[in-house]
């Protein structure tokens, strides 16, 4: 019961944040609402027993990635986005599309998965077990992703390094 209540509470928070992300016209508000979404998602993870995932969700997503977003928004001092014709058209098609799509998918999911239920902490993803899996069954993907991250760092450095430092590159 409490489980359901908490779920609905934070689910509602999620949806609210997501919708807010859409309707807000200032990127920083969108960013903050996204942070809200992520925080409440972390709670949902906790409900599902994925405690480690929840923690990482908060630390990595909310604590690092979104901070990066906010940082960039501050750096570029992005202002409100102005309405354009294209945007109205997008609204015209996007909003109903989203509604129809989500309703359809939701109905389908309910249809398919039937009424199988999970109790709170159904599948405890303790850090120990997660780590064990990560370093036994998923070692190769893990290493590959590490390489991916390395490449990403390099790319970011090259891209964001100041123009006059890589003038030649721009000419070429």
């Amino acid at each position, binding site marked *: 019961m409490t489980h359901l209540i908490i779920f609905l509470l934070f689910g509602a928070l999620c949806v609210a944040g997501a919708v807010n992300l859409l309707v807000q016209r200032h990127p920083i508000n969108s960013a903050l609402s996204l942070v809200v979404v992520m925080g409440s998602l972390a709670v949902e993870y906790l409900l599902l027993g994925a405690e480690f995932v929840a923690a990482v969700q908060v630390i990595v997503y909310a604590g690092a990635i979104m901070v990066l977003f906010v940082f960039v928004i501050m750096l570029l001092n992005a202002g409100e986005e102005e309405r354009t014709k*294209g945007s109205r058209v*997008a609204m015209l*098609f996007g909003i109903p*599309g989203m509604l129809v*799509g989500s309703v*359809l*998918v939701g109905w*389908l999911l309910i249809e*398919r998965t039937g009424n199988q239920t999970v109790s709170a902490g159904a599948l405890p993803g303790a850090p120990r077990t997660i780590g064990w899996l990560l370093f036994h069954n998923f070692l190769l993907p893990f290493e590959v992703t590490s390489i991916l991250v390395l490449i990403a760092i390099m790319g970011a450095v090259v891209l964001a390094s100041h123009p006059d430092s890589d003038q030649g590159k721009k000419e070429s």
Partner: protein
Amino acid sequence: MTPDLHLWLIPVLPLVGAAVNGLFGKKFPRQAVAGVALLFSGAAFALALLVASRFSSLTTPHVEVLATWIRAGKFQADFSFFLDQLSLVMLLVVTGVGFLIHIYSVGYMWEEGGFYRFFSYLNLFMFFMLTLVLASNYLLMFIGWEGVGLASYLLIGFWFTKDSAAAAGKKAFIVNRIGDFGFLIALFLLIKHFGTLNFDQVFQGIAPMGAETGGAGLLTAVGVLLMVGAAGKSAQIPLYVWLPDAMEGPTPVSALIHAATMVTAGVYMVARSHVIFERAPMAMTVVAIVGTLTALFAATIGITQTDIKKVLAYSTVSQLGYMFIACGVGAFSAAIFHLMTHAFFKGLLFLAAGSVIHAVGGEQDMRQMGGLRTKIPWTFWTMTIATFAIAGIPPFAGFFSKDEILWRAYQASWVYWFIGLFTAFVTSFYMFRLWFMTFFGEYRGAAESSHHEVDELGHADMRVGVPAPHGHGHGGIHESPRLMVVPLVVLAVLSFIGGWIGVPGALGGSNRFEKFLGPVFHATAAGAEGHRGTITEGEGEGPESQAGHATELIFTGISVFAGLLGFLLAWQLYYRNPLLPQQIAAGLGGLYQAVLHKYYIDELYAALFVKPLIAGSALILWHGIDQDVIDAALDNSAHGAREVSDSVRHMQSGNLRSYAGWVAAGAAVVIAYMIWMGTR
């Protein structure tokens, strides 16, 4: 078991020579080029002699398989070589005469441009000709067949800067294609019915079959088609037209390819497939008739020609006609016999003619010659021998072979014989005409010193500036260098005594040549016993009746008389009173004109085939199909593509969100599909 003679070496050696000269000859000095060419052709000749020496120890036919070439289902064709008496004779003729002509060419072509090219082609020709001769199946033979066609094309068009030469080359090639077409169809028929092209298998397949008297059948069809091919290669009616033009090529080429060897390939092919012909009387008749007509026809044209090489060319055609008569009446060994002797004396004639042209600095018109007897004695005497030989004056080589043919022809039908006889008379007439016009009387040519300029061969442009090793450069009619004389002499000797190996029984000889070839034409002829008396009688070395001998002697006398008659006539017209011919020509008028213009055959062909073909190609193929269908299709598709992309291009607005929209739409479609699938 029979020893391995490495027959494959014989064709391959000239190929190596061709490759060496063709690839590196440009850098070589002339001596090196000549050395390479002579070395390899000579080596081939030596090998041929070796084979001949060991031939007696072989069980014929002797087949050597080098490698499997094609294996498709049951059909199989190998690179395999086939040696029996027939191919041995051809082998010796080709390599021997070829080698001599190589030697001769060194002298003749010495100061021509493209020296290495010439010898590369020449060796290439040797390779293909030997392949043709030694092939053990029709397919390999066909390769050689096409190959010699190619070589002849290249050599006719050797002076390709000269339009007439290039045109002549093309003409030869195209006309040959027509013949090859027939040949190919014949091959297909053989494959269809016998599933193989190997000679022995095909012939074994045919052996049990009886003669197709009366109604035509498979064999008749094959025979006739083969004859078409032979007509193309051996310049028979109606496909002879390319040979006279082929004289555009250098004289040694004319001698080797268009007199001695290649043009006889058709005869060889017919003789090789005699098994087929013996069982197809109708095809035989066709062969005989074609041969007869050609012989007469070409000979008559020969009378009026004034270009020395043209005369020889037409005489070649008519001599080939003789050979086909022989084949047509089933006297294959006689045909081969004449082929051999003809190779000798006609090669000699051409070489001598070449020597003459060489001497007078490229002049080919007999009316510009005369009185060369004393100036170039060697050439004169060798040419004399050759002339007598072709005129059928005993005891020269030509006498025996031609006489043999006439005798057999008579045994088949007196018509063949009579026409052959008349042709013999005409032959000796125009040959002596040539002889008299060239060597007797006064020199009618231009100022001797200036024959460089009147270089009719028209290849002054290609002449390399090297000082001629012999006195060609500084005026004066002169004997050819020793390099050219030696082959003349050798051939002269051959064309003198060449016929003695086949002295017919009637003249107290025992026709060893026919005996030698016997196995080839007997072994299988037995199957067709009696469907045609002449063959058995001719092939059968059995005792000929005394009556036969008597009559044969009479006929011999008649033919000799015909030859002498021709000589006398020529003597009258062209030695005693040279003005007479013009009057006669004037008297004859139209007929003379017709003959002079070769009966307008070329014009006829042009009107009948060439022009319609060109017109049709231009109208239907070029404008119709190529432009309106193919090109149109391409253009329209291109235009369509442009139209479509012009309209579609606007989708790519560069607006990120429009792209995103497309992606989303696609995803929506996919999801919808999956839902639909899932709900079903």
